[in-house]
């Protein structure tokens, strides 16, 4: 079979080389923890008395996670191989590096591998007298029924959840408060997506799965985990409606409510397509009398070069809105 073309050197060093390139591009924002190359922390973030925020997970979702490390958002990120959790060591090193004595929050997507590795790191941190609490992101409403929300995966919506928690930490709220804001942010965040064509791991250079011509996969995971259904590729409005209907069903927004919107590309899907979807999002929200506080459109949580997109709504209250508006200055994302 035809090999997927990628601009890489060898398959073994993609993550190291990517990190080198990221550090070369963003020296004002990011640095490596001494002796732990996969632990990246904000140049200007962690500080005494502040709850440290460590995020992380597999590579291949850029700008998630590294792009969201910086003052006002996450203090550090532990970086795994492509689509693989980081091992406990780099997570632990991040925790040590960003700990300001007020506790460290671990936030990451709810995947078995990540949970096991982060939990081991938390156990190790406890031995170093660092108090770690964990908030898992579980925004992918397609990944489990509503009454099993804690089984759901974390996908593009983790951007909102990290942002809110990062703001809480930056405001020097207490550990309890930071954790509470993180959980609340996650509870208020709903994502669903569709995939149109697969991605290939750098190590195999062949598609990790198949989506037949003319078809799309509804609710596919950001690592190519099969979704909830396969169906014919629908027009942009129908796709947006299908996603929004499910989100509305869970979120149950009332007239006058406020949301933040994220229309995210899985990689290859263009801004043109995302904005066409956003047009429909706006129409549907207008119809329901829901006001849009802010909209982000672009590559926020990708799956290598997968084609497809997701829509995330965060159901805002005053507090969450304040957290989203709080300034942050990250290598790949900024709120001023």
């Amino acid at each position, binding site marked *: 079979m035809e090999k997927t073309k990628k601009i890489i050197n060898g398959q073994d060093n993609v993550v190291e080389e990517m990190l080198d390139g990221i550090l070369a591009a963003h020296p004002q924002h990011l640095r490596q923890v001494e002796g732990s190359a996969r632990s990246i922390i904000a140049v200007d973030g962690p500080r005494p008395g502040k709850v440290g925020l460590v995020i992380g997970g*597999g590579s291949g979702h850029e700008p998630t996670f590294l792009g969201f490390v910086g003052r006002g958002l996450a203090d550090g990120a532990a970086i795994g*191989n*492509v689509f693989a959790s980081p*091992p406990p060591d780099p997570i632990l090193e991040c925790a040590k590096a960003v700990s300001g004595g007020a506790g460290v929050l671990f936030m990451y997507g709810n*995947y*078995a591998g990540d949970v*096991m590795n982060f939990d*081991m790191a938390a156990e190790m941190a406890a031995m170093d007298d660092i108090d770690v609490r964990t908030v898992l992101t579980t925004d992918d409403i397609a990944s489990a029924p509503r009454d099993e929300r804690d089984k759901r995966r974390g996908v593009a919506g983790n951007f909102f959840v990290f942002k809110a928690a990062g703001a809480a930490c930056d405001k020097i709220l207490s550990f309890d408060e930071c954790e509470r804001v993180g959980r609340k942010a996650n509870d208020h965040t709903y994502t669903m997506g569709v995939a149109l064509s697969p991605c290939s791991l750098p190590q195999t250079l062949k598609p*990790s*799965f198949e989506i037949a011509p003319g078809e799309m996969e509804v609710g596919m995971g950001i690592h190519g985990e099969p979704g909830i259904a396969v169906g014919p590729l629908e027009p942009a409005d129908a796709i947006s409606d299908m996603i929004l209907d499910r989100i509305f069903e869970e979120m149950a927004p009332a007239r006058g409510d406020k949301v933040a919107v994220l229309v995210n590309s899985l990689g290859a899907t263009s801004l043109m397509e995302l904005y066409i979807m956003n047009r429909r999002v706006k129409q549907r929200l207008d119809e329901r009398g829901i006001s849009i506080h802010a909209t982000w459109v672009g590559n926020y949580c990708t799956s290598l070069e997968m084609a497809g997109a997701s829509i995330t709504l965060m159901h805002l209250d005053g507090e969450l809105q304040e957290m989203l508006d709080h300034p942050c200055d990250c290598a790949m994302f900024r709120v001023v």
Partner: protein
Amino acid sequence: MANYDGASLVKMFKAIATAIAAQKEHLCELDGKIGDADHGIAMALGFGAVSDALSELDMDGVAPTAVFNMAAKSFLNAVGASSGPLYATAFMRAGATAKGKISLAEGDFVAAFQAMAKGIEDRGKAVVGEKTMVDAWRPAAEAMAAAHAGGADLAASFAATVAAARKGAEATIDMVAAKGRSARLGERSRGHMDPGAASAVFVIEAMERGLDLSG
């Protein structure tokens, strides 16, 4: 009755690394059906790192515990992913059963297999029937114990163990996943062998081969 020292465990781990490297693509394909297509990569990376780390060891009189612990640590740090903590825990627990011993007697493998299976179950909070590697490791551990209790020698015990692991892995085909990445698929996970169960069979087969049971 043969005894197995640290050096023979090193040989065993190298045999696992070789076997897994050969199955890398196959395991990725299995994972592609119900997971994220990287299980072969993770396993090859993990056992490759184990093999490299063990090559650095001074073999002279190395204790079995030290080999298991080094395997655990190098596997864990190389892999991330689910398989990392699962196998790392398995090897750490196996190492604990061998604590203080300079070599493993045949019967010690019963304890080691029980500890590995238990370690995986504990770490993954999984039990038999949830379509994970536990479905290979648990019956394998039980078969090892039963064979040994029935008086079988290690070669015969391992034969039974491998057979049980294979049967367990086969059985995952008909299961609906309840743990791990594939658990979200519901009915769509049925009809495919669990990649972690499949790789467990290759691991156990390679242990049998690598331990030189003819001795």
